[in-house]
């Protein structure tokens, strides 16, 4: 356990500056985008009132109503997509930097006393901690953006809505529901483990064999999924809730398989 905490701490320390820079950049872009959207809306409104000689209410109608918070945070979905992309890239980088970095730290990691599974768990924990941090910062940014939106835009130009409005991306992320949060983290865990499996497979076999093995593992996920869907569409033997249960069970079994495979590769196959 001590080794796990020490390794996780080291992994977090190694990437913290980069992580903080990316996070700061995303937050700045998000807040700037809210300011831009609000100012842009107001300038369009003024232009309309001047050119068409309309009253403010008429101009608002012409612009399809007041500016909703969803419109003001329109760019957030791209920022969230960038955040997800960085997380996936980081899941690759957290391994490859140890092999291809200036120092070959992977030698030290693989030779450390104790079980190698600790290395895997510490890297997994690090990426998950960063995902949690990203979610937390997004929550704060959404709250700040809401304040900014309310402060910059006169009240009669604001559309009455709950804090996140209609934006699907924000609705997904801005949740205080424990189950929703758990689902997001479980999904992140699944994707990160998949990435780890790809990296460890690539580090364990030669190019051709590695590609074939990765293709086989992806097929093991995709083919049964399609087959199940086809089966459920064709027959009506299960109600939707039961179908979800079957899908979830399959994903759990698959997750157990890829986790086992990651550990096996790390213990017996990876080479330097």
């Amino acid at each position: 356990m001590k080794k796990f905490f020490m390794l996780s701490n080291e992994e977090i320390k190694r990437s913290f500056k980069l992580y903080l820079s990316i996070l700061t950049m995303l937050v700045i872009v998000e807040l700037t985008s809210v300011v831009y959207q609000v100012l842009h809306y107001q300038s369009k409104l003024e232009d309309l009132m001047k050119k068409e000689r309309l009253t403010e209410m008429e101009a608002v109608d012409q612009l399809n109503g007041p500016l909703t918070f969803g419109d003001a945070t329109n760019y957030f979905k791209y920022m969230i997509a960038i955040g997800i992309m960085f997380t996936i890239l980081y899941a690759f980088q957290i391994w490859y930097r140890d092999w291809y970095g200036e120092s070959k730290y992977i030698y030290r990691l693989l030779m450390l006393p104790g079980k190698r599974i600790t290395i895997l768990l510490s890297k997994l924990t690090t990426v998950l901690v960063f995902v949690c941090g990203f979610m937390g910062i997004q929550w704060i940014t959404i709250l700040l953006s809401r304040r900014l939106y309310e402060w910059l835009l006169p009240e009669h130009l604001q559309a009455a809505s709950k804090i996140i409005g209609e934006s699907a991306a924000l609705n997904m992320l801005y949740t205080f529901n424990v189950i929703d949060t758990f689902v997001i983290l479980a999904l992140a865990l699944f994707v990160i483990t998949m990435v780890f499996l790809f990296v460890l497979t690539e580090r364990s076999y030669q190019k051709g064999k590695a590609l074939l093995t990765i293709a086989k593992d992806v097929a093991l996920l995709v083919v049964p999924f399609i087959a199940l869907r086809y089966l459920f569409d064709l027959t009506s033997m299960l109600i939707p809730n039961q179908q979800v249960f079957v899908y979830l069970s399959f994903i759990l079994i698959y997750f157990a398989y890829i986790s086992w495979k990651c550990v096996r590769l790390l213990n017996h196959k990876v080479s330097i």
Partner: protein
Amino acid sequence: MLEVRGLRKSYGPKKNVLNDVSFTVPLNQLTCLIGLNGEGKSTILKAIMGLVPVDAGTIKVDGKTTHDSIAFVPDLSTMPGYMSVGEAVAYMRDYYPDWDQQVAEELMGFFKLMATDRIANLSKGNKAKVNLLIGFAMNRPYLLLDEPLAGIDLFTKEQIAWIFSSHYMEGKGILMTTHEIAEVEHLIDRVIFLQNGTIIQEDDSEEMRELYGKSVQDRMREVYQT
């Protein structure tokens, strides 16, 4: 005793790297693994440490399948560049229960390494010294040294060569690969010649000198030029 038996390793059906390699490394001796580039010397060391999976063979230390009593000193910088030498030493001390801090500090002093120096800013020779001091401070009975003298300046070579003849080597079983035979010739107890992943000759260096009347380096030239 470190025993390597029937080690085989291939990359696909065409490229055999190790063919039935067997040898032993006794305590209190320096065994030198000699071969041209690409003969499989480093692969053997990595295989002993479990860093390269092998197709067949066993590696035992005093009858047990473990590498917990072996320290490996690779020929590359293996500590993260952002760490200082002091941090690297503290980091390793936390993981290794038998860590000998006194040896670490003595060697830092001997090598004139500053605890505050960043690993990333060290020269190749100083990075080799850090690797070496970590290897010795692990305080393990067997030590594997992969090209410890490669690509470093004359004075660093002399410093490292001095370590090899010092009390730090006492009681240890050393397996070393090197091309710089001349610098360590007088310290070598046993020589293993490797060619195409196969051991072609294994000799006691004293006997070899008596038998062939030649130095290890001359003998190496003879073996690989014929």
